[in-house]
């Protein structure tokens, strides 16, 4: 045992021994000399645990998907038939025209294939991120070490595409061999990888909100307001998705938008009841100055709210170690920037 000097000997103490003192954890007084002090530790297993009910995923047969698939197949076949007829007609008229038509058709098919491939890739990517989010949440609950390693590995792969994260990735990989519990590993990964991204995301959201509030305050027509808000929101969601590693195409954007809106619907009520009303009352000075300015501010807030929902949806990890950006912070940004500009 000489090669392991740090090895401590086993020892046992009777609690009714006069030299053994049992003290509470709060009572950290120095023990008397020679006394043996026993401090019972609070038991983490007895603390109440909050369990989030899992999102109920739709299972079973998807008739809607089947319908759209079948319809798309029919449309594609119809188009194919039409194009074939057209090329046949062109060949009948003149051979050179026919070849030109054939070339166009081939190019269109190739482009369509590439577009479809990109869309599928984007959707798969979004699916991966969403699954990663769920798996990370599961690990946080179960504290499973092997699963946490798998999540972190996938996360590192995802982060590989973002060169800004090179340093953070290296730091995280340095910890890969250490003995760290599952949940702690996820928290560590969040702190390392998500901190710069969260800062950037917050900047994006407040910039978009600010732009929306200014444009809607000065725009002459309501229709322009609506269009601008729509475009700005879509752009914001796309930017956020790119930031957190997703590459959504058109279909991906539709899927994301659905998720964001669903998320807004779930959390919107809560937000409206606490922070939004507070914001309206507290910082409503602008509204008193002018109705248009107030409308602009409100639109900006709504965009920020949408941005927050989009962050929740596109972020590959749930918020645990890092604070979730709140609407109040963004509203402050919005007002401060306005004041700076004014």
């Amino acid at each position: 045992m000489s090669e392991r000097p740090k090895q401590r000997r086993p020892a046992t103490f009777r609690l009714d021994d006069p030299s053994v003192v049992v003290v509470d954890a709060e009572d950290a007084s120095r023990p008397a000399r020679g006394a043996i002090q026993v401090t019972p530790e609070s038991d983490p297993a007895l603390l109440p645990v909050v369990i989030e009910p899992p999102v109920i995923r739709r299972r079973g047969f998807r008739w809607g998907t089947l319908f759209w698939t079948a319809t798309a197949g029919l449309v594609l076949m119809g188009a194919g038939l039409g194009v074939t007829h057209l090329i046949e007609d062109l060949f009948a008229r003149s051979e050179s025209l026919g070849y030109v038509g054939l070339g166009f058709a081939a190019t269109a098919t190739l482009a369509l294939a590439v577009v479809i491939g990109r869309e599928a890739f984007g959707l798969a990517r979004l699916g991966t991120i969403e699954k990663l989010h769920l798996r990370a949440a599961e690990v946080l609950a179960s504290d499973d070490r092997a699963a946490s390693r798998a999540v972190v590995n996938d996360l590192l792969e995802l982060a590989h595409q973002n060169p800004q994260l090179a340093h953070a990735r290296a730091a995280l990989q340095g910890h890969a061999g250490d003995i760290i519990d599952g949940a702690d590993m996820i928290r560590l990964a969040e702190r390392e990888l998500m901190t710069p991204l969260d800062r950037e995301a917050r900047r994006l959201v407040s910039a978009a909100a600010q732009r929306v509030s200014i444009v809607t305050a000065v725009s002459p027509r309501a229709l322009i307001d609506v269009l601008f808000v729509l475009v700005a929101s879509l752009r914001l969601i796309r930017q956020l998705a790119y930031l957190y590693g997703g590459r959504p195409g058109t279909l991906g954007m539709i899927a994301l938008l659905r998720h964001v809106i669903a998320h807004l619907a779930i959390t919107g009520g809560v937000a409206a009841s606490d922070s939004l009303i507070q914001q309206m009352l507290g910082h409503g000075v602008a509204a008193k100055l002018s109705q248009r300015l107030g409308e602009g501010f409100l639109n900006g807030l709504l965009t920020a709210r949408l941005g927050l929902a989009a962050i929740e949806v596109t972020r590959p990890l749930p918020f645990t170690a890092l604070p979730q950006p709140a609407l109040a912070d963004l509203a402050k940004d919005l007002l401060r920037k306005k004041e700076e500009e004014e």
Partner: protein
Amino acid sequence: MTTSIQHLIEEARLSARALFDFGESLFNPTLRLGVTGLSRAGKTVFITALIHGLTRGGRFPVFEALATGRIGRAHLAPQPDDGVPRFAYESHLQSLIGERHWPSSTVDISELRLVIDYQRQNGADRTLTLDIVDYPGEWLLDLPLLTKSYAQWATESLALSRAAPRVHLAQDWHAHLATLRPEAAQDEQATLIAAKLFTDYLRACRDERFAMSLLPPGRFLMPGNLAHSPALTFAPLDVSGDGTAPEGSLWAMMVRRYEAYKDIVVRPFFRDHFARLDRQIVLVDALAAFNAGPEALHDLEAALAGILDCFRIGRGTLLSTLFRPRIDRILFAATKADHLHHASHDRLEAVLRRAVSRAAARAENTGAAIDVVALAAVRATREATVAKGRDKLPSLLGTPAPGESANGEIFDGNTEVATFPGDLPADPEELFRDDAFRGLSSAAADSSDFRFLRFRPPLLDRDGIDEPALPHIRFDRALQFLIGDRLQ
């Protein structure tokens, strides 16, 4: 030739049974949970805690189906096999909670069926039937015998008994063995004496001070209803592997009885209870081996490797479900984690991972899911820090079982103590070297490197008329891994 035909018949029987089970489970989804473990690993306590936790509703935050309330109720149902005794759940629970002592060691096989009514995540009402079997852990040691001939087994047993520290315990038997000639005429009296001395030697190896695990044949230690039958009256002889037994010799009689033992005892046991498992938890009591010494740890490793080779492991396919059921999830669990401060649980898991590495690698290659966890089905201790001079020892508070001793003092079962059991090394390899640490088998009680006291079950307050929930460590994680996916 005969062995291959025997093998074919055995396989056909297993397949027929599997097909029958499959038909049954179409209407009534059934999960056979194999609770595997050597003796004193804590199988009975695990099963009792499992049933109690599911029927009463325990504190299982990680076990998703129960924690989110999707399990409507779980209740005991009449078991499927009429020829097997019922698992005495109520009396085990009474001894745990009421009398605060661990259930006495299992002497015979028993069975229980638990029916879980739950709602799937999409809202559909479903029922899952869980069949659990409890049996003496000693019997598990017989499974590796299925593939061994008498000569192989005798050679291995002799080689084992001639290594330290067993050689001292086997002196009497070795002395008698030296008087036997395998080619001599068969002699019932000599066989009886040899079998008795051999059994005594096995029993001595099992003592707490040595805690040996690799002690086949298991029925010698726990005979059940077959005590004193000829199938249990044989012993290893000093025979070479290539010779054949002359007709009418002592050797031939031993071979016959060994084969009878396999036919009467081992094969039916395997067929009825192990060939049909869906999920398996392997309970390992590593702490007893730490108490005893490195030899006990090596022995445990060898015993586990031999047993795990017998199971059919792999990802299930349709064909395999029909004809050859396989175990698709295995959890290796280091039990009695409550005898160790939680800061050391990772190290305990690492030791177990090292001890089962061969079996785990094999399981992983076949596509089965495996996991290693340190758990306590019933938690008997609380944690505390003991400050003694400058040292701060991560310790445990609990009531040692009557008869346990430390510092030369024997406890009566009522005194509470704080105990620090010793530090596990960060690198598990350190424990697997020879002479890596001193245990009870080679050193006096006060100079061993580890001392894990056995504690009495915890004192629990009844909340109202309900039975109290049993405290545990990571039991919910084990449940989630074993049956969570079938309750989605």
